[in-house]
């Protein structure tokens, strides 16, 4: 991608919507303090006990709207998942979802969110890794959760996050020869001319006279 350009010819802004520069800086998420309450303490304690590298791997613990989020050092994500899956008092057997979020105003703007489910204890947890655009790499969790295969491919496709050790990290939803990663915030909506029966429809940002 070169200079990001959005709807109605908006340039020079992370906001590609064209609705008047409505880029907002995300409020700082406060680190939760102990006691977290409920079963959150149990899970964090169990992880701390089972995982020797806990202090180096966990960046912070956030509790918001009754959901527990652990921010993990990207390089450690596969190890943490392994412990979360195998430890008897954690048992996060199911990896529900892997996806990304692009917090465009932040330094480490590409976030990968893992939603894990413990079927044994009926609990859910979110793991989050923050990466820079310059070096968007982290280990793949496919060896722990085979189901992450396609979901990591989708995250790569949409955000350009490289999952190291993934068996076949290729695009999955976009065509193989697609340029750019569409879910990044600086990737505009539209901007691709569409050809239909010989007639070419211009991209939305060049379609209107009042751009």
């Amino acid at each position, binding site marked *: 991608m070169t200079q990001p350009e959005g709807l109605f010819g908006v340039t020079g802004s992370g906001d590609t919507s064209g609705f008047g520069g409505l880029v907002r800086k995300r409020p700082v998420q406060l680190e939760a303090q102990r006691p977290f309450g409920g079963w959150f303490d149990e899970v964090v304690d169990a992880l701390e006990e089972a995982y020797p590298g806990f202090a180096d791997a966990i960046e912070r613990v956030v509790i918001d709207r009754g959901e527990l989020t652990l921010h993990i050092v990207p390089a450690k994500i596969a190890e943490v998942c392994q412990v979360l899956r195998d430890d008897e008092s954690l048992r996060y057997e199911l990896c529900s979802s892997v996806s990304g979020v692009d917090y465009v105003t932040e330094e480490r703007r590409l976030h990968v969110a893992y939603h894990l489910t413990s079927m044994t204890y009926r609990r859910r947890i979110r793991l989050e890794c923050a990466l820079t655009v310059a070096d968007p790499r982290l280990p793949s969790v496919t060896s722990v959760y085979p189901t992450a295969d*396609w979901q990591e491919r989708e995250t790569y496709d949409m955000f350009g996050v490289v999952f190291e050790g993934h068996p076949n990290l290729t695009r*999955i939803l976009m065509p193989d020869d697609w340029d750019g990663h569409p879910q990044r915030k600086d990737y505009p909506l539209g901007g691709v001319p569409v050809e239909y029966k010989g007639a070419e429809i211009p991209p939305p940002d060049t379609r209107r006279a009042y751009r």
Partner: protein
Amino acid sequence: MSTPGYAQERETTEGKVFTVTGGDWDSLVSGVDPIHDERIVVNMGPQHPSTHGVLRLVLELEGETVTEARTVVGYLHTGIEKNMEYRTWTQGSTFVTRMDYLAPIFNETAYSLAVEKLLGIEDQITDRTTTIRVLMMELNRISSHLVWLATTGMELGALSMMIYGFREREFILDIFEMITGLRMNMAYVRPGGVAQDVPDEAVRKIREFLGFMPKRLKEYEDLLSGQPIWTARTKGIAVLDVTGCVALGVTGPVLRSAGLPWDLRKTMPYCGYETYEFDVPVAQTADVWGRYEVRLAEMRESLKLIEQALDRLKPGPIMVEDRKIAWPAQLAIGNDGLGNSLEHVAHIMGQSMESLIHHFKLVTEGFRVPAGQVYVPIEAPRGELGAHVVSDGGTRPFRVHMREPSFVNLQAIPAMAEGGLLADVIAGGASLDPVMGGCDR
């Protein structure tokens, strides 16, 4: 252009002339073992009637045995998640409903529950709203399972099943039309409530449906269960045990057919499902037959749930009271579909300037949602449907990701198909019930 050795060429006055001899066939054929090298690659789809929409399978065959199966998806990618970031929170309903087009109510409900959790208004959702949501979801579950039964029947040779399945589904779609104004893609469940109240006429129609449906289900069972072809094509086919399901993230009827009663309505209840009386059907066979039995039984359980929901349907508001969130819900179904009711238009255009301003602000700009992120999973007909919704505090979603069961479940196709026969790929793939609109979003 031509490679030496293939054909000799010489120039004539008529142009270039090639002399094709092809005399090396004997040496070529003698190098091939006719028994052990029957490996061929077959491309199935994306335009194939029995791959449920635009799913493409690349199969490596040895004789009729599949040695390798690769699944290619993405043909129906429409960028719904990206598009939602450019529309208001309420308009999001209109987008998510188009994902899994056989289960639109589930997409809307998962999304709306997530937005409500972000807003912190879960307690303000009225009883009638929740009951209507349950009612609509269970009707939708039946219609979705009916399409599964119909198409799978067709794919495995029971053509009449298709006609019957679609006949009953049509009845449910008529009920949907009566309630929401649309048969599919209704954008009916919205953050804060639902778009439109359930008319009495629809309640009568649902009662009528409850009256004849058990008999029809029995008919399907009579039609298929004892059928030798149906049994041969489903029993012991495409087996995937609990370990395989959990490792591959497969949820829903497929997981339950392997014997694990994991149903989010029971295990992690939402929308008050814990107060309803219903069972979670399971099978132990982990094959296509098991999935057929589970889905049939689930339709019966859904009928129970619908009946209970109808009994609970007490008059009341169908939107939250907060006027800063509630979409001007004075909607009515006119001759041309759902729109602002005439009374509402008369009110804002002729009586109250403030109402007009309020309506205008809410409709064009929308409401603001406090920053944060939530993940709300619900039990869709195909498994766990999760809505990961992120807000930055604005009037539009910052990011919406749907954990689509179709997308995740399709990863199981190689595990089910490899080592089996080509014909069983169809049965196995169909038993996952993938909807490509949901898979590719």
